[in-house]
């Protein structure tokens, strides 16, 4: 029997990027806000001290900052003919744990989606005809447009102090930036990071091939910065321990470094850590949320009543909580009915390894940041004519190698033995002169009828609740796209002067053991009507108007960019709608 706590105005489930952004915005409004976070408090000086943050085994291999599958996991199968089995150890994606969420251990690659990404379906249909889209692909237009989101992208970038070179200022293309990007209203808050050797070489080689290379927009700051909340950040020191790790010197944008110090000064905000929300509670009508139940670390159950519920628990757990709380209808792939769990997507990343002559090239790969890199965007989205190629979608191609950590840097030319004296010599010969960018080809992942989430019939979590079940596979569209993009990428690496380029395009079946970013999307997608989505353009649940579902659950499909910039922009956009309209008149913001 859950013990009831005094009511709050707002309860926020999960204190990562979107939880922190919403918490600050709503606390500014004077509301009593409480955030409930499953994992621990995490603080720079204790958890990521410069005396021990740079530990590859602890953080990259043993995943210390991440959720333990023992605490929460899911099951996986490629298709309905298989029995889903538990993901016993993480592979394909890594789930954050604790205050800061993914925003703590991310690389801080901070992109915007293209204007056409928000109208994928109508744009592609208009250009190529409906028949060009493969059978079973379920891409949709979002409902929100790039122009509507632009001021909120700006707010997120200025919150983070993002370092970059603008490519399109108010419609005027700028040299040195991404000429394909949507128009931005003002430049980045700080200049682009400096680029190490191999990244610079890549950018130059790409230019010689006729591409317009530009620096990746980075949340590892190029210089000291004070954000609009008055919070200070320092410049990145290119330590090469970025993604998977916490930042020791306040130079990576995260909730810790950009929001929490200002948020915690607010007397109307509290956070509870090590408490897991188990259910969103509804009243008898099923159309109004009354709060949440959560379990603290001793196993005691509590009820937190609230007038407004913000679900910001990361894509997978947003979907799981909606399902376990009986909100919306669960997707059935056979009938096509139900919106919760539908249109799951991930990211189609691949790479090509470049082996260079060590006598001529010394890359010092350990000099890097998480979002370092030179990129080309000619093959992203619909930036090129797909007609001759028979696939849709695309991605950026970048030398975005973020580290030279040795356990991760064991790529050797094909044919090199995996062990023994020749292996050892191979490591000597190639470590300093190999280009290996794990997600150098960063392709989109479109949605399909057959890629979805539901609840597993067999496996349960430590509370006895069913695990999420993921049914996911690549389709020919994605593998064709990956092969094409990887070929283009390999050409640039060859032009850099590589002795040998080994292409590693993404091939099916989708493999839960291969890391391919943690950019999980969909499952409670945004739509223009409740017929084909779970939330409206403001991330307000179509079913329960006092529930807003943040994060990449809203993406009807994933584009060819890291999603966090868009996730942050949506959070600000949603918060603005709540503050300017919802609070004045609680109820549906969009007519169904």
């Amino acid at each position, binding site marked *: 029997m859950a013990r009831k706590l005094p009511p709050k105005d707002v309860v926020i489930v999960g204190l990562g990027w979107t939880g922190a952004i919403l918490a600050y915005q709503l606390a500014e409004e004077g509301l009593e806000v409480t955030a409930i976070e499953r994992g621990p408090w995490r603080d720079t*000086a204790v958890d990521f001290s410069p005396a021990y943050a740079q530990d590859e085994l602890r953080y990259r291999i043993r995943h210390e900052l991440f959720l333990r599958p023992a605490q929460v996991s899911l099951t996986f199968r490629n298709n309905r003919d298989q029995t889903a089995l538990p993901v016993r150890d993480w592979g394909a994606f890594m789930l954050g744990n604790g205050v800061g969420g993914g925003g703590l251990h991310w690389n801080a690659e901070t992109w915007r989606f293209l204007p056409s990404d928000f109208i994928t379906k109508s744009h592609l249909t208009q250009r190529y005809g409906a028949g060009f889209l493969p059978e079973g692909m379920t891409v949709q237009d979002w409902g929100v447009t790039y122009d509507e989101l632009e001021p909120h992208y700006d707010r997120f970038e200025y919150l983070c102090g993002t370092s970059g070179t603008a490519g399109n200022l108010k419609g005027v293309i700028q040299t040195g930036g991404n000429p394909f990007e949507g128009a931005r209203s003002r430049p980045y808050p700080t200049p682009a990071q400096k680029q190490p050797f191999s990244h610079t070489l890549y950018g130059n080689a790409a230019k010689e091939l006729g591409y317009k290379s530009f620096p990746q927009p980075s949340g590892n700051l190029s210089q000291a910065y004070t954000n609009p909340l*008055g919070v*200070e950040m320092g410049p990145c020191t290119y330590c090469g321990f970025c993604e998977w790790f916490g930042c*020791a010197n306040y130079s990576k944008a995260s909730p810790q470094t950009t929001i929490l110090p200002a948020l915690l000064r607010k007397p109307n905000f509290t956070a509870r850590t090590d408490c897991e929300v188990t259910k969103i509670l509804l009243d008898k009508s099923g159309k109004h949320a009354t709060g949440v139940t959560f379990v603290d670390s001793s196993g005691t159950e509590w009820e937190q009543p609230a007038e407004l519920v913000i679900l910001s628990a990361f894509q997978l757990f947003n979907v799981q909580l909606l399902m376990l709380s009986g909100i919306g209808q669960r997707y059935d792939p056979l009938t096509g009915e139900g919106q919760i769990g539908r249109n799951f997507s991930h990211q189609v990343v691949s790479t090509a390894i470049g082996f260079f002559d060590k006598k001529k090239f010394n890359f010092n790969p350990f000099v890097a940041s998480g979002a370092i890199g030179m990129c080309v965007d000619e093959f992203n989205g619909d930036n090129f004519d797909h007609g001759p190629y028979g696939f849709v979608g695309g991605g950026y191609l970048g030398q975005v190698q973020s580290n030279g950590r040795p356990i991760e840097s064991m790529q050797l030319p094909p044919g090199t033995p995996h062990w023994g004296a020749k292996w050892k010599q191979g490591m000597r010969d190639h470590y300093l002169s190999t280009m290996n960018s794990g997600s150098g080809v960063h392709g989109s992942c479109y949605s399909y009828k057959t890629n979805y989430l539901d609840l597993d019939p067999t496996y349960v979590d430590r509370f006895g609740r069913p695990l999420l079940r993921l049914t996911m596979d690549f389709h020919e569209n994605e593998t064709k796209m990956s092969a094409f993009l990887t070929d283009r990428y390999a050409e640039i690496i060859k032009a850099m002067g590589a002795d040998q380029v080994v292409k590693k395009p993404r091939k099916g079946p989708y493999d839960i053991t291969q890391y391919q970013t943690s950019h999980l999307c969909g499952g409670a997608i945004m739509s223009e009507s409740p017929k084909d989505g779970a939330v409206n353009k403001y991330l307000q649940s179509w079913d329960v108007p006092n529930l807003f579902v943040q994060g990449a659950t809203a993406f009807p499909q994933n584009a060819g960019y890291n999603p966090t910039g868009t996730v942050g922009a949506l959070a600000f956009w949603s918060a603005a709608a709540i503050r300017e309209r919802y609070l004045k008149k609680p109820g549906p913001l969009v007519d169904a």
Partner: protein
Amino acid sequence: MRRLAALFAALALCAGPALAGSDGQDFAKVQRGRYLTTVGDCSGCHDEPGGAHPLAGGLKIETPFGTVTASNITPDKDTGIGSWTDDQFVRALTHGIRRDGAHLYPAMPYPYYTKATRDDLLALRAYLATVPAVRHPTGGDDLPFPLNIRAGMAVWNKLYFTPGEFRPVDSRGAEWNRGAYLVRGLMHCGACHTPKNLVGADKASAEFQGNEIDGWFAPEIAAGAPRGLANWSADDIVAYLKSGHNKFAAATGPMADVVTRSTSRMKDDDLHAIAVYLKAQHGSGNQSPKPVAASDPAMKMGGAIFGDECAACHTGHGTGRPRLFPSLAGSAAVQSRDPTSLIRVVLGGTRSVGTETAPTSPAMPAFGWLFNDEQAAAVLTYIRNSWGNAAPAVDAGQVHDVRKALTQRSG
């Protein structure tokens, strides 16, 4: 806004007799008094521990001589100061004599408050009379014989205490005088920042030249070089007091509380006056100590340690990042004659203060688990003598003593 409501509620409830002798109806006076409690930081000692009732007393104050208990200064008639007359109140603050005639211990800083004008003290009283009256008997003190005999304070006062209001010095101008009035009076800066003799009285000849207190070293705040504020501008001082941060320093430890409760809430004019006054104090004057040579083994060890563990934040040139990582180069605190604060911060880490204008509150990680006493001493010697800094080396014994004291404190 809630303060105002409480104020009016209190005024409505407390009719004549409870406000013995003071004019609760003079709103401006009460507000001035409230500001003066911020200046004097009455809450720092007199708030009830746990924060339930402001100014209701009960805090056990550790002094080198034993524990003294802060009294209840709410208007409660029996356990607070509700029955005190104005004269009794003023006498307590200016002469250190309680209503019952007993001496106060100078943990209550009457040697400084004596400088306040009667007018200001009565404004203070007027405000105190408006806070909620709380019945809270505060218990006794815990001092060893013979210090527990209050009458003994008469001797101490005779030797070390001269009562009397602050006398302005006309030639110095209004701002200097305002600064002097605040610093030497209600703000009682010298209570922490002036070194003491064996019986805890200020060493008058070394005013504001730094003092060890509570396991920290409150640094010199006069304008000596390099141990004092010689290379701080008046604006630097104001920024520090207002936000807790400037390019040289970040308020932490006991000073973080002073910034939070007191200086960050003071008027800019007053902060500037304080800066003007402090900049006019010579303090330790111009010291030119010879820096420890770079070839010294401790400097070599310290340099290696610094490069591996400290440079990622404080940079290789020791310049840090403004308002994020203090500059070690040119820092008065780093070149203090007493390295206690430095040792403590290196061993245990610390969090700097967060304020409205500087919310970040960056924290220094703990290194006590990593450095042995020799290594901690070496890296401190290194920062005290690099980039133009010059200060006595730190030795392993000093580190050992601070480490021991910290363990005892947290036990």
